[in-house]
């Protein structure tokens, strides 16, 4: 798979594999990460986004070009995408009203009823592309085109914990109270993150989640 190299900062490299959201691309990146975790380049961290492999490094310890050479080498190895199992996790959600402050406005913007939005949103499982933005926040791809809605022009200062939200062709869950620019349509009371757990995030990249309206 081809990629382009982007320097997000002077110590953060991105290997960007695509301009669109694509499960095959994401699975490819996750396999590369498994290989990269066994490297001896003193990298600070390696993690996936939808379509990029992100590497944080200390320029005093690691040469940028060494990282690029290693990723180029690993990228050529044969990959086995079937290793990633399709596990489905159910997420109970209260939609609309005080639980989903933006549902009414989204309904107006998209010109479809709140009930239809809930039906469409909870109709199928979503692939987990990455965890980020905040601890345990899953980025779920494959949101139905009918629910495509731009993010808020100015991010909200405080999004309540457990908020289920949408933005563009994405949907996700805010596990903690935080700021955020996605439109809130519902809320779950599931504990998505446990800092004392060795694997703190309940939802992991590569699995699927399905929303169940309460």
């Amino acid at each position: 798979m081809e990629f382009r190299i982007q320097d997000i900062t002077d110590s953060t490299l991105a290997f960007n594999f695509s301009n669109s959201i694509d499960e095959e691309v994401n699975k490819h990146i996750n396999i590369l990460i498994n290989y990269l975790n066994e490297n001896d380049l003193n990298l600070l961290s390696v993690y996936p986004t939808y379509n990029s492999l992100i590497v944080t490094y200390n320029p005093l310890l690691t040469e940028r070009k060494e990282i690029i050479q290693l990723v180029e080498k690993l990228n050529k190895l044969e990959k086995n995408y079937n290793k990633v199992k399709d596990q489905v996790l159910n997420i109970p959600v209260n939609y609309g009203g005080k639980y989903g402050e933006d549902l009414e406005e989204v309904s107006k913007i998209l010109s479809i009823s709140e009930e239809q939005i809930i039906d469409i949103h909870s109709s199928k499982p979503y692939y987990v592309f990455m965890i980020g933005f905040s601890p345990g926040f899953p980025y779920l791809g494959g949101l139905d085109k009918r629910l495509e809605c731009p993010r808020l022009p100015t991010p909200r200062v405080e999004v309540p914990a457990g908020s289920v939200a949408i933005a563009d062709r994405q949907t996700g869950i805010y596990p903690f109270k935080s700021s955020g620019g996605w439109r809130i349509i519902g809320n779950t009371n599931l504990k998505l993150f446990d800092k004392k757990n060795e694997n703190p995030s309940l939802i992991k990249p590569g699995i699927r989640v399905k929303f169940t309206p309460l």
Partner: protein
Amino acid sequence: MKILKVLNNPIFSTIQDSGRYGFENHGVPNSGAGDMLSYRLGNYILGNSNAASIEIIHGNFEVEFLSECLISITGSDMSPRINSVPVKMWESIQICKGDNLKFSTPKNGLRAYLSIKGGFIDKEIMKSNSTHSDFDVGGKKLAINDLLYCDSELSNYQSDKLNSYPDYYKFSQLIANQKKLDVIKGPEFNSLSSKSKKELFNSEFKISNRMGRTGIVLEGVKIEFSKNFTDIISDGTSKGVMQVPSDGKLYVLMEDSQRIGGYPRILSLTSQSLNYFSQLMPGDVVTFNLISLEESHLKIKEMEDNFFKDNLSKNINMNEFILTHANKKFIVKSDKNNNKNIIIDGKPIKLEF
């Protein structure tokens, strides 16, 4: 061992180290000290590496020490006083049981660091002692009556040598005078309008009141994109990244920021300029200077050579005598050549005229 007790409710003081890395795939931000240079120097003076220090934001922090130890104070000058006597920053300071250390308001920067020989011992979570300002993933904001701990064998350290940066008092001025900050191009830089590409480097930006360890909003000219530009798919970010949402403002991501974001990443502060930027206060004005990635890497290496390759010990010829005052004995050391260095019971005194 209990080493200190917090005596007041500070504005915003937290335990920080060099950051929490390796949990980005669980969505965990890095946190860590904002001014990594001052934090590292404070620990370097004490011979620590990646030890937990206290980051004091906006000053007004008071503690009582419960045991002997060796400390250092670096970063912004918040007029630190021990038992009401002004002490020097950027030097090791011998602390006795019962000593009171008080920081006032910041003079020249937002953040100061209180470090201790051996480091503070906190409950390490996900391989770091760093505190996040919003998410409950590490320590917590320090408050009145909080007790902090350290390793008794490491902290109870006495040295005849004074560890300091001979030229480093000047660092305070260095912080205050950095108004032109180096930046490198971000992935979406080329999507900016040609007008904005110019204006970014020939206009001033002001630090707004919307600021914290997560990010800082800058006030200035409205940033615009070329007509054919559309939203990006959420992708990797990091501290130092400058994003522009559709309101056209510059949002600078700081140490507690998320590592994934959906706004265009037009520039990023270099690792070096981020140290200075993290010391800025609301109302401060900055301009940006575009450099290449290679130049930035060279500057990182230069800074390392300048600050972390020195022998810290000061070989100053000192007179030593015992001073008796109010039935108490003090060991006083003073500089033979001038009176610029006076150390009383291991505490470098800041002379104010």
